[in-house]
C-alpha cells in the first residue's frame, strides 16, 4: 500500500515537473499561456513531491532499501509520465 502511494506521489511529482517545462505545458494545456512564474511554482511543487516521497519511503524502509525503492519507483513514474504525454495530447 505504502509503495503504491509513493508511486502515485512520484507520478504526480513527474507530472508537475514536466508541466513546469514550457514545451510540455503547451502540449498538455494548449489553451493556457505559459508564464515563467507558474513554471517556477510547478517546479517547486514537483521537487517538493519528490522529496516528500523520498522522506516517506526512507522513513518507513530505512536508508538502504528505501533509496533503492525510491529510484526504482521513480524510473517507473518518469516513464509513465513521459510516454503518456504524447498520447494524452493526441488529437
Amino acid at each position, binding site marked *: 500500500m505504502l509503495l503504491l502511494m509513493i508511486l502515485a506521489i512520484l507520478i504526480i511529482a513527474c507530472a508537475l515537473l514536466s508541466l513546469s517545462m514550457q514545451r510540455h505545458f503547451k502540449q498538455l494545456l494548449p489553451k493556457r499561456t505559459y508564464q515563467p512564474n507558474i513554471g517556477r511554482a510547478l517546479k517547486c511543487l514537483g521537487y517538493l513531491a519528490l522529496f516528500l516521497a523520498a522522506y516517506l519511503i526512507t522513513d518507513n524502509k530505512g536508508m538502504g*532499501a528505501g533509496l533503492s525503492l525510491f*529510484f526504482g519507483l521513480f524510473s517507473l513514474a518518469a516513464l509513465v509520465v513521459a510516454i503518456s504525454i504524447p498520447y494524452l495530447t493526441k488529437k
Partner: protein
Amino acid sequence: MQSSFRQSMTWLHTWAGLVFCWVLYFIFITGTVGYFDTEIDQWMQPELHRGKPVEAVKQVAIAEAWLTKHAPHADEWFIFPRNKRETLYLNARAFTKGKESIEQSFNAETGEPLAKARETGGGETLYRMHYVLHYIPGKIAYRLVGVMTFLMFLGLITGIIIHKKIFADFFTFRPRKFKRTWLDLHNLLSVTSLPFQLMITYSGLIFMLTTWMPMIGIASYGFDEAKIRAVFAEMQGDIHVTRSGTITKMLPMSHFVNAAAPVLDLNDVRHVKVKYPNDANAIVRVTINNQTIDRFRANMVFNAQDGSLIQQQLSDPIPPSVVSNTFLGLHEGLFAGIYLRWLYFISGLLGAGMIATGAIFWVAKRQDKIDASPNHFGYKLVNALNIGTIIGLPAAVGAYFLANRLLPIGMHARAEWEVHCMFIVWLLAIIHPGLRSSKQAWFEQTCIAAIILAAIPIVNAITTDRGLFNSLQQQDWVFVSVDLTAIIFAIICAGAAWVMHKRQGQGA
C-alpha cells in the same frame, strides 16, 4: 581525429556501445532473470515441494543425525536450513580433504530425504551466465565480462556527456517519428533509470576488482596465492583451527542454535558450519543471511565441546569493506524484499531496453545508406544480430524454460541440454534475419517469441500437476508468478507483432 570533445565522445559512445552490445544485452537479460534465480530453481523442479517453514533448530537436528551417521569425522559439516528465500530445502553437506563431498537434501517439515528431482540448470545457471557466460572457460569469460562492463561504464559516461539536455529533455518522447522515436526511447530509458544503470555497472566493476587489479594483493603479500587467500579469510573473521586427532563428543547442534537465538534472527539461518566435527578442537559457526544492504552475514562461533562463545560478529568491522560490500550488496539485491526485487527486475529490463534501443537507433540512423546498399555485410550483420538478439534471446530464454519441461526426465546431461536448447534457438534467431527482409524477420521472430512464451504455462500445466489453476488454488505464488510473467511477456510480444503487422499493412 574528431574535431570537438563532444564529437569524440559521440564516436566513443557509438562504437564502445555497438561492438559488444549484444553480449551486454545477454548479460542484462540473464542477470535480470537471475534476480529470481531461486524462484526459477523451484519452478524447474516441480517434483519438490517446499512445505511450510520450520524452526531452524528442528531442521538442524535432522541434518545432524544424517551427518553423524554418514560422515562423523569429516573436515567440515555444512547444514543449510530451508530459510526465507535463498535456501529452498534443508541440506546437509560434508567435506573431507581428498574425498568426494557428500550431501543430502530433506523435506524440512517431515525430515524425509528428498527424492531425486529432475536434473536441471535452474535459475542458477541462467544467473551465472551473466558473469561467466557459457561454453567459454570461466576464468577467460569472467575477464571478458570485465572488459565489457568497463565498456558499458564508458558508454554510460559518454552518454551523459553527449546528451546535451538531460533535464530539458527529461520527459521528451515523440512517437511515430522513426529515427527520432528510437533516440527518444533510448534517452528516456537511460535517463529515467540512470541511477540503477550507474550503480549496476560500477558495482559490477567492483566485483572484478582483484581480477583486473591483482597487484592490490600481490603488492603486500607477494605471489603466494594461498597466503593471499589466508589474509582474505582472516579479514572475513575466519578462525584458524587444526585437527587435534582426539575424538570427543560434541554438544548437539540444537544447543548452538538456541544459544544464538537471542542475538541472531533464526528465521533466516544461512548455515551452521562445523570445523572438524567430533574432534577435540571442533568449532561451530552459526551464520544468518545478510538482511542488510552491506552484505554482511552476522555470525557467532562456539566451542563445540563446552558451548562457550569464541567470537561474535554482528557488523562488518572494516569501513572500506563496508563501502565496497554496500555496492556489491546493491548489485546482488539479496537484501531486497519481494517488491524491491520486482523493481530490480524492471530496472534490469530497462537497462536491456536501453541497449536494445541504442542498437536499433544505430541501424535507423543509417537507414538511407542501408537502403542504398542492402547487401553491405556490416549492416546485414548488425541487423541480424539486432533482431536475433533483441527478440531472439528472450525467445531463447523461453526455450530454456520449455526444455526443462519437455526433455526426457532421465536424459543424460539433461541440464546441459536445457542450455543447448537455449543457445540453439538463439543461433537460429541470428541466422533467420539473413534469409528474410528486415521487417519480415522482426515480425516473424516476435510472433515466435510470443508462441514460445505462451507455451510455457500451457506445457507446465500439461506435464506437471502444478499448472496455473492448481498453483492458484494452493496459493503457490512462485509457480503462479513464473506462469503469469511468461503470459505477460507473451502478450507484450503478441501486441508488438500486431502493431508491426498493422504498420506493414499501412506501408509505414
